[in-house]
């Protein structure tokens, strides 16, 4: 019995996803059709790509709130540069801008030894402001609407380019986190940065590259969004950050660092997307959708606690990245 519970808890995300799909399939007509699913997957991909990057950061004990702003900025840059550079080079520059934003985040967090929650809150405002500034707060339009249609095409009956990219990224990240030494070091840094540092793991470098990775993926997501819509807008992605964090946490990655998985994030992203889709099909009002998402989040966090409190001091209040020596400058 106890073992069954343990297994259920371990695969809670997969189970909840399966339940969501089954229940939705039963009550929502046409829900489990290829069109619906491929559409849902495509929409999940934007959140998913940012969530993939954030997973690494959360495991390393950091957080990035600026993902949504990077998303908008990268999209704008890639759209504005289309006439002068051509679509693909402009897209690459957009991704590079995402990576650069990540490097700014990481450089400041590591260099100034500041809390990443506060720092990326600040850069979120700044990146967003820059996005408004260079566009005069107006949406910008790309050069080739036909290219957007290619981007939105569905392959193998289910994958769009970006949903395929999201899945590939998740699988690669999963292999990297579980099979490589560098991947293990990310967990070590998130779990106890001091110990990792003293064991010869360059904790600062791990965090720095984590931010670059997260920024680049937010950039990729933003560029793809702009290509699909043939538009770059300074308000794109403004509600994404919270949804992304929710999806990663639903996937079992811990906000305090040291624990998490890429496949969990995949499950979290798909669960949130499946729920949203089902509720939209049933014309559930948007505010009620948010309530349901919130409740799911609470449920999973409580389950997570049940799994992991065995053998640990019960009642300990998780501290959001505050006990990380990288962000507190070595002071407890």
């Amino acid at each position, binding site marked *: 019995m106890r073992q069954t519970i343990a297994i259920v808890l371990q695969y809670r995300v997969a189970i909840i996803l399966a339940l969501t799909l089954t229940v939705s399939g039963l009550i929502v007509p046409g829900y489990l059709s290829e069109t619906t699913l491929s559409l849902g997957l495509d929409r999940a991909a934007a959140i998913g790509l940012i969530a993939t990057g954030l997973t690494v950061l959360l495991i390393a004990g950091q957080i990035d709130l600026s993902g949504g702003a990077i998303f908008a900025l990268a999209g704008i840059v890639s759209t504005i540069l289309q006439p002068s550079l051509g679509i693909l080079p402009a897209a690459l520059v957009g991704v590079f801008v995402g990576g650069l934003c990540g490097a700014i985040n990481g450089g400041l967090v590591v260099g100034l030894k500041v809390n990443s929650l506060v720092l990326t809150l600040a850069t979120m405002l700044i990146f967003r402001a820059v996005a408004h500034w260079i566009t005069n707060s107006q949406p910008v339009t790309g050069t080739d609407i036909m290219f957007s249609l290619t981007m939105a095409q569905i392959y193998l009956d289910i994958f769009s380019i970006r949903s395929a990219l999201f899945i590939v990224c998740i699988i690669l990240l999963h292999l990297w986190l579980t099979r490589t030494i560098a991947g293990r070091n990310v967990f070590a840094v998130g779990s106890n940065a001091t110990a*990792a540092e003293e064991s010869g793991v360059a904790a600062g470098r791990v965090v720095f590259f984590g931010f670059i990775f997260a920024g680049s993926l937010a950039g990729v997501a933003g560029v793809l969004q702009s290509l699909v819509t043939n538009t770059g807008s300074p308000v794109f992605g403004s509600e994404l950050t919270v949804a992304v964090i929710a999806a990663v946490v639903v996937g079992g990655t811990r906000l305090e660092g040291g624990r998490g998985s890429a496949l969990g994030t995949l499950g979290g992203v798909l669960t949130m997307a499946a729920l949203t889709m089902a509720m939209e099909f049933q014309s559930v009002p948007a505010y009620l959708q948010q309530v349901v998402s919130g409740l799911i989040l609470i449920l999973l966090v409580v389950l997570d606690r049940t799994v992991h409190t065995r053998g640990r001091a019960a009642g300990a209040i998780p501290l959001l990245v505050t006990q990380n020596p990288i962000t507190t400058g070595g002071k407890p």
Partner: protein
Amino acid sequence: MGKDLTLVREEIKPEMGSTDFALSMKGITKTFPGVKALSNVNFAVKFGTVHAVVGENGAGKSTLMKVLSGSYQPTSGTIEVGGTEARLRRPADAQALGIRMVHQELNLVPDLTVAENIYLGRMPGRWGFLDKNEMLQKATAVLQEQETAIDPQEILGNLSISQQQLVEIAKAYAANPRIIVLDEPTSSLSEHETAALFRILRKMRDAGIAIVYISHRLKEVLEIADEVTVLRDGSMIETRPIAGISASEMIQLMVGREVSNVFPKSPAKIGEPVLRVNSISDGANFRDVSFDVRAGEILGLIGLVGAGRTEVARAIFGLSGIVEGTLTLNGKDVVINSPAEAVKAGIAYVPEDRKGDGIIPGMSIRENISLPVLRSLTTFGWIRGKADRTLADQYVKQFSISPPDPERRVNLLSGGNQQKAVIAKWLAAKPSVLILDEPTRGVDVGAKAEIHNIIGQLVANGMAVVMISSELPEVLGVCDRIVVMRDGQASPPIDRQDLTEERIMALATGEEVA
């Protein structure tokens, strides 16, 4: 075991140069702005020896070790490792030369496995991909060699503190070091586990490793060390072979004065029983535990780690449930379901894990002390600043907390002074029963005597004290009666006069002595 040695270690003697000295630090001086932490210290350790470093907190032991580990740069002086002059600019430099530290504060990663912790920073692999099998094999070999029954695949956070300590030592050992520095390695180990640790240390010593052993426990120093260096006030007082030095001589060298009795017990009038524990069980960790503690009495609660001592204390304090049995406080049966109820009933508990449970590190001494009694210091919900300050001043003075600044953040104090602040915090609540869990763990001789003094004052004023301790001399010196626990069961309280260290160990381990 011996034949496995080659599996995890290469021979270390060659390429060492032609010296017997693994380490030779000459004329080390380290000044911080305004403070001279080390002054012209000479310190040399031979290969294949255990070299103890003793001294009160603040004597410069940790500064010296930080210089050795590359965390601090000496202001002047030279360091030779294996006969070659070395510059240790970063911890990585020291590690490259085969110097490994085992810290008092565990430096492990709770969410990784034991094997991953042992090889953290040096995991085996190819093309960046981790070779899990090789890592597991090597870790198993190292743990086996150390005769520890720890599963290398267990998540580290699930181990007990003492097991984690052993993993930390295995980690240092697996790095194939020339010099291992152990800082208070036994502070979380029971006597049993300490004996196991000493077997490991002797094995490492016999393999030619130089071991630097920092400890407050002089008895252990006498047992394990070949040589001892005494530091006092940042200067090296003396290095001597262990043969021909006694504990009292070491203490004398450390404090620079004669200390007649390490464990002063001020006589107190023993009164009526205050707390009576009537065959309590928690259904898991202990069963059928009974004892009473009287006003003016210090009752020792002793046993090996895992015997259930702390669990009994936590249950009495309402931190965990009692499934059977009752508590009688001042003649009345009481039911305690939470720490808040315990405090209200007049029971206070100073936990073992000072950092985790006892103090709030970011708050000042004053804020920590007044925390449990804040309500009584308020008028219509507003804290009366003056009453708050008076209370803190009183305890800072009474316990001679140093530095005597109530506004100092408590995590900036030394271990002994933190402990005093924690005790003060609970005294402010004016309890009739005070439970102290390892109150002198990891504090130096001077602070230990002061803490014993404080406890002595408290019982002289009629308080009943239950003291959990792993140090037999301390328990025998301080306590009036002693309860020995083994595997969750408790002996009846035994008068101190009827006990010896050997007798207690026999009761605690269940091994009868002849």
